[in-house]
C-alpha cells in the first residue's frame, strides 16, 4: 500500500521545525508504524538524507519509549495500542498521516519525534517508591493483599510512562501519569505507610514542572495505551487533600527541573550530535 507521511522534522531543541511530506510506496499492511518509519529511514539513508529520529525500545508495547501523534491522536487511531503495536492495515491505501511529536512545555523537543520526558522521572523520584527495611527477605504472605486491591494496584501500575496522557490532554496535564504512580502504591498496604508524603511531594513536583492543570476532561484515558482509568486521578486528589491536611512539617521536597542536556547529563556524549 501507498501512504504519505507528513512528518515533523526538527534538527535540535533550539531549531525551527517544519512538516516534510514523505511518500512511502512499499508499505506492507503487516508492518507496525515503527517498521514503516524504519523502511522510510532506509530510503532516506540511501538518498543520503537525515533519517527521522524517533524513540523505541521493546517494540511490544510495554516499555513506553515510543509514541507520537498520528492524525491528531496520541499513538494513532487504535485504542490501547502503542505506535510500535499499531499495524499499517488500520490505515487506508493512499492515506496521509500527519505525524508530530508530543507537544508540551514539560516535554521539550529534542529532535524530530523525540521529546525530553525527564519531567516524568522527576515526578517518580519525588515519591514513587516504598521504603523497605533491609535484612532478611520477609516470609511470603506476611502482608495480606486482597484480590480487588491487587487488581486496582496492577491496573494503575500498568502505566508505561509514555506521555500520551500529557500529549492528548487539552491542558497538557500530567495528572493521569502522576495519579497512576500514586495510586498503584497508595492502595497497597506496603505503600500506605508513606501515603500522605508521597501524594504531596509528587503533586508538588508535578506542579513544579511546566504541566497544565487537570480539569477532568478525560482525553488522557482515551489516549492511554494501557487504559489507565480516570479513577487514579481521584485517588491522587484524595491522597493530596488528606496529605495537605495531615502533614505536620512544612517540608515539601521537589526536584529542580533541568531541561538542558549539558547540565543534566553526566554522560560525556552530545545527544544533539548529528553524524
Amino acid at each position, binding site marked *: 500500500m501507498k501512504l504519505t507521511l507528513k512528518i515533523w522534522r526538527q534538527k535540535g531543541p533550539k531549531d525551527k521545525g517544519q512538516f516534510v511530506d514523505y511518500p512511502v510506496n512499499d508499505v506492507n499492511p503487516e508492518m507496525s508504524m515503527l517498521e514503516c518509519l524504519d523502511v522510510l529511514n532506509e530510503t532516506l539513508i540511501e538518498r543520503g538524507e537525515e533519517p527521522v529520529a524517533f524513540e523505541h525500545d521493546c517494540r511490544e508495547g510495554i516499555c513506553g519509549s515510543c509514541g507520537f501523534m498520528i492524525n491528531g491522536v496520541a499513538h494513532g487511531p487504535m485504542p490501547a495500542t502503542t505506535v510500535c503495536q499499531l499495524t499499517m492495515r488500520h490505515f487506508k491505501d493512499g492515506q496521509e498521516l500527519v505525524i*508530530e511529536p508530543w507537544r508540551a512545555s514539560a516535554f521539550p523537543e529534542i529532535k524530530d519525534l523525540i521529546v525530553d520526558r525527564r519531567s516524568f522521572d522527576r515526578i517518580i523520584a519525588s515519591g514513587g517508591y516504598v521504603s523497605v527495611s533491609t535484612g532478611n527477605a520477609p516470609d511470603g504472605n506476611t502482608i495480606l493483599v486482597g484480590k480487588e486491591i491487587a487488581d486496582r494496584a496492577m491496573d494503575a501500575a500498568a502505566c508505561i510512562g509514555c506521555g500520551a496522557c500529557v500529549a492528548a490532554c487539552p491542558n497538557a496535564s500530567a495528572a493521569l501519569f502522576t495519579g497512576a504512580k500514586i495510586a498503584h502504591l497508595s492502595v497497597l498496604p506496603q505503600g500506605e505507610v508513606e501515603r500522605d508524603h508521597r501524594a504531596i511531594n509528587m503533586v508538588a513536583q508535578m506542579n513544579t514542572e511546566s504541566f497544565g492543570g487537570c480539569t477532568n476532561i478525560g482525553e488522557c484515558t482515551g489516549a492511554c495505551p494501557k487504559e489507565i482509568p480516570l479513577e487514579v486521578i481521584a485517588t491522587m486528589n484524595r491522597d493530596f487533600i488528606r496529605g495537605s491536611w495531615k502533614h505536620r512539617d512544612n517540608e515539601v521536597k521537589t526536584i529542580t527541573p533541568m531541561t538542558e542536556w549539558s547540565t543534566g547529563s553526566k554522560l560525556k556524549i552530545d545527544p544533539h550530535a548529528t553524524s
Partner: protein
Amino acid sequence: MSTTAVNLPKSGKASFWGSTNGKKVVMAVTGSILFLFVIGHLAGNLQIFEGPAKLNAYGHFLHSIGELLWPVRIVLIISVLLHITATVQLALLKKKARPVRYSRKEAIKSSYASRTMYWSGPIVLAFVIFHLLQFTAGYIHPESQFIEGDVYHNVVAGFSVWWVSVWYIFSICLLGLHLRHGLWSMFQSVGFNHPRHTPILKGAAAIIAVLIVLGYISIPISVLLGIVK
C-alpha cells in the same frame, strides 16, 4: 537523571492553593455552592406560575430578611470570585503548558461540555451580570418600565422583548452544559471516583442539567407564548 532536591517555600507551588489540584478542590466546593444557588433560584422563580401575588410576596420575603440575605450574597460573591480566579489561573497555565500547538488534534473520549467549560463559564458570567442589571438593579429595562418590588411585572415585561428571552435561553443552555460536566467533575476533584458509582453520577449530572435548563427556560417561553402575562 541528574537532579537537585530542594525544599519549596510553603507559598510556592507546593501549597494547597498553589497546586493545580488545590485550585480544582476550591472550584469544586465553590461550584457546589453556586449549584445550590441555581436550585434555590429556580425554586423561587417557578412561583411565577402561581400568579403575581405569590411571586411578589416571595420577592418581599427575600428583602425582608436582610440580615440573612447579605451573608448569603457575600458567600455567593466570594464563591464566584474564587471560582473565576482558579479558572483564570488554570487557563493561563494551560496556555503556557503547550506553547506549540498541534497542527491537528482530535478529541476521542471527552464530552463536548467538558471541553467548552472555558467558554460556557465566561458567557454565563456575562449573562449573570446582565441579568442582575436587568432584574435586581433595574438599570436595563428595554421597552418597559422597571417597577421596584413588582417582580412579576418586571419578569413579564422583560421577557416580552424577544432578544432578552433568546439571550436568556441561550445562556441557560450554556449553564446546563457547564453543569453537565461540573456536577460530576466536582466529585472527581475532591477525590471521589468509583467504577460503579461514577457512571451513575455522570448520568445524574446530565439529567439534573436538563431539568434545570427546562425549568428556567419555561419562564421566558411561557411569557413569549402568552401563558404568563
